[in-house]
């Protein structure tokens, strides 16, 4: 088949919070998550599970924070992929963009540019600000893959006004939902797929994945990953753009699917998300020059290691504080796991309070000091991960950084009350 790729691995990431939306439960991003952090988290987890040196990173999203400026290069920086030689693409327009990203990936692979990461992520909101269902799926594609193989078997394009969002609008606007049955989705499916009855149709309206929601661009790969284990036929159609995708599972599909199901059934229901407390006057200083100069520090946690004393230094000083300017420093990237040395639950900081701050002894050397993600807290001795998060929007630009998150298998406190330390 022409537009075909092997799937080496696939990972789904959902925010921790689950809220009720009409008759279903959907995943909802915390105040410090967005499409970029979800995409980066999924990409990082993918590469952690299956180390690879991707030649290309393709992002499909309709919730990129900027209309111009780019999102995929942020994902590249946060995933440690940025640099000369990386080919990136940013697909958008409709939630059918996943099909175009997959088609493009297949073409790149056939031309010898492999492996390719395709990451899909969305945090779409309706006009009332309620999430449709937030999440991300990242896939590692190559000529062959043990998780399976997929192919974009056909496409169609015409104009159909089902959902849209203008640059200055915060929520996705519906046209007239009574128009939806008249849309081209069904006709496109019949035209592109031989056995339409066995084909799942993904549109702006459904299907809802219980405990995830609509998932936007991530809906197609999520549906694929959560499927039963046989061949899958999917059609995604939005705005009149349609792609038909066929997937054949491989020997490693069952394991990856089980992991995705575990992510789906996880999360914390009906979480009372504390309002993000903002005290008047919180307007953090930001400098585009500094943001650029310290991008590797902020986005890749790149520090240094003193060759003389062996200490890991983050952030990087001009000289080793212990051995002075004569000692040589070599670049060093902080690990992404560690152990909590100490912490506090701060009630004063004017964004996100109460929030937990933590000092983490990072595995492999160095320390990290920063916020615990969302509204979670930690205890001394907890095993934690460092995850990419939105830190603030000072100076009108989103500042990404890393936050501390308890490892999933820890029993952690979900309540703000501090447990007595003994």
């Amino acid at each position, binding site marked *: 088949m022409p537009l075909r790729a092997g799937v080496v691995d696939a990972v789904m990431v959902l925010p921790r919070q689950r809220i009720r939306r009409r008759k279903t439960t959907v995943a909802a991003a915390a105040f410090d998550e967005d499409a970029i952090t979800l995409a980066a988290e999924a990409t990082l987890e993918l590469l952690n599970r299956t180390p690879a040196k991707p030649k290309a990173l393709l992002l499909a999203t309709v919730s990129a924070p900027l209309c111009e400026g780019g999102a995929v290069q942020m994902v590249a920086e946060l995933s440690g992929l940025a640099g000369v030689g990386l080919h990136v693409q940013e697909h958008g327009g409709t939630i059918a963009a996943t099909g175009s990203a997959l088609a493009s990936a297949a073409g790149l692979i056939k031309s010898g540019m492999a492996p390719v990461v395709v990451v899909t992520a969305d945090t779409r909101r309706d006009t009332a600000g309620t999430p449709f269902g937030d999440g991300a799926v990242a896939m590692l594609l190559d000529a062959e893959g043990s998780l399976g193989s997929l192919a974009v078997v056909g496409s169609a394009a015409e104009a159909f006004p089902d959902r849209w969002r203008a640059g200055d609008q915060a929520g996705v606007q519906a046209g007239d939902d009574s128009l939806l049955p008249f849309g081209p989705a069904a006709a496109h499916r019949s035209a592109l797929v031989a056995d339409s009855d066995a084909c799942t149709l993904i549109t702006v309206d459904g299907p809802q994945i219980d405990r995830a929601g609509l998932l936007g661009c991530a809906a197609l790969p999520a549906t694929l990953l959560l499927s039963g284990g046989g061949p899958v036929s999917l059609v995604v159609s939005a705005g009149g753009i349609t792609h038909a995708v066929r997937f054949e599972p491989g020997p490693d599909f069952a394991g990856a699917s089980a992991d995705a199901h575990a992510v789906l059934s996880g999360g914390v229901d009906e979480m009372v998300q504390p309002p993000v407390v903002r*005290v*008047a*006057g*919180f*307007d*953090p*200083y*930001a*400098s585009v020059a*500094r*943001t650029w100069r*310290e991008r590797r*520090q*902020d986005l890749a946690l790149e520090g240094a290691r003193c060759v003389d004393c062996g*200490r*890991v*230094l*983050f*952030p990087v*000083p001009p000289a080793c*504080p*212990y051995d002075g300017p004569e000692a040589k420093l070599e670049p060093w990237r902080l690990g992404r796991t560690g152990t909590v*040395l*100490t*912490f*506090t*639950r*701060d*009630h*004063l*900081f*004017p*964004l*996100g309070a*109460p*929030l937990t*701050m933590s*000092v983490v*002894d990072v595995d492999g*050397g*160095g*320390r*990290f*000091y*920063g*916020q615990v993600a969302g509204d979670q807290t930690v205890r*001394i001795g907890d095993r934690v991960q460092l995850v990419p998060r939105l*830190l*603030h929007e*000072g100076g009108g630009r989103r*500042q990404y*950084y890393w936050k501390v998150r308890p490892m999933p298998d820890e029993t952690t406190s979900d309540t703000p009350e*501090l447990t*007595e*330390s*003994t």
Partner: protein
Amino acid sequence: MPIAGEVAIVGVGITQFGVLHDRSYSSLLAEAATSAVADAGLTAKDIQAAWLATAEPLLAGLVGDSGAALAEAIGFAPRPVTRVSNFCTSGMEAVRGAAMAVAAGEYELCLAVGAEKMRDVAPRESLLAKTANHTHPTLSKGRTAPGQFALVANRYLHTYGYEPSLLARVAVKNHNHARLNPKAHYRKPITVEQVMSAPRVAEPLGVLDSTPTTDGAAAVVVASRAWAERHARRYAIIEGVGLAVTEGYYSVHYRDSSDFLGFAATRHAAQVAYSQAGITHPRSQLDLVECHDCFTITEIVNTEDLGLAERGEGGRLLLSGATEAGGDIPVNVSGGLQSCGHPVGATGVRMVAEVTDQVTGEAGDRQVPGARRGLAHTLGGPGVISCVMVIGSPG
């Protein structure tokens, strides 16, 4: 060393500390300076140079970020005024600067004054908003001053197994001491229950574990020993002074050099000051200590870092009653930062003034009987800079 034993404090002045809405920065500066000068039996015209400590001029309309603030306040023109700022050690930095100039023989009589107007803005918008907004866009976001000491409190309680109520006892002790200090911001006794049930600031610290936000000023007149012997009504001698800077700006929590159980800066500064002053056993060789109790935990670890107790034993020292007025090593009989408050630049000067009064027998109701040698300690950054000064009666 030129300072140790050769520089004297010959006059002191402290304003009221509190929420002083009817007082301007300049008027506080002027009051502290003129009362110190008068206490020394001098007039402002006799002073040859001055050091001004103001750490937070942004809160006072950018007044105090230069020595110019003093010229008008006490008619000091055209004499030199050096403005110093070194986090919470600023006040002692001013005294140290004046002491070095006197020890160098450059001047005979200098003024060290610290002043701060912190309450022209509401407390929440003052230091908190400033540090939240203007500091590093990533490395410092989430960082608050109480939060950084809370990291130490949690690690300390976890490591040594003390009950959290230990911290409250510092506040209770120091507020009780302040009953006898009319200049203190807070003067009423409080209970452990009140401290533990006060609103949380950065757990385990609450509002009553924390120094309040306070206006105030303090000044001392610094002279050579020779001048003091000839002219001073009463004077104390700087027997030793150490200043230590241990870490960079945003790096302190990211470096693995800290165990979060104390502050190396205090230990280094104390070592220098003790060595100059000939102190080998501080607990028995000091009669009182004014140390930097910005938060309750800070006093506890300070006593360890200053060598008054072994590592981990600061809690037991506190529980024994030894650091209460009447105990064998009274700590913060003035009420400390807990009760006096912490107009940042003024604090170190206030401590030097307090110890001077104590070792010259002029501490009134708060007098530690027979006090001849005391210590002043400030800590800033938090934790990356410390100044320790040993001050004793002459002879």
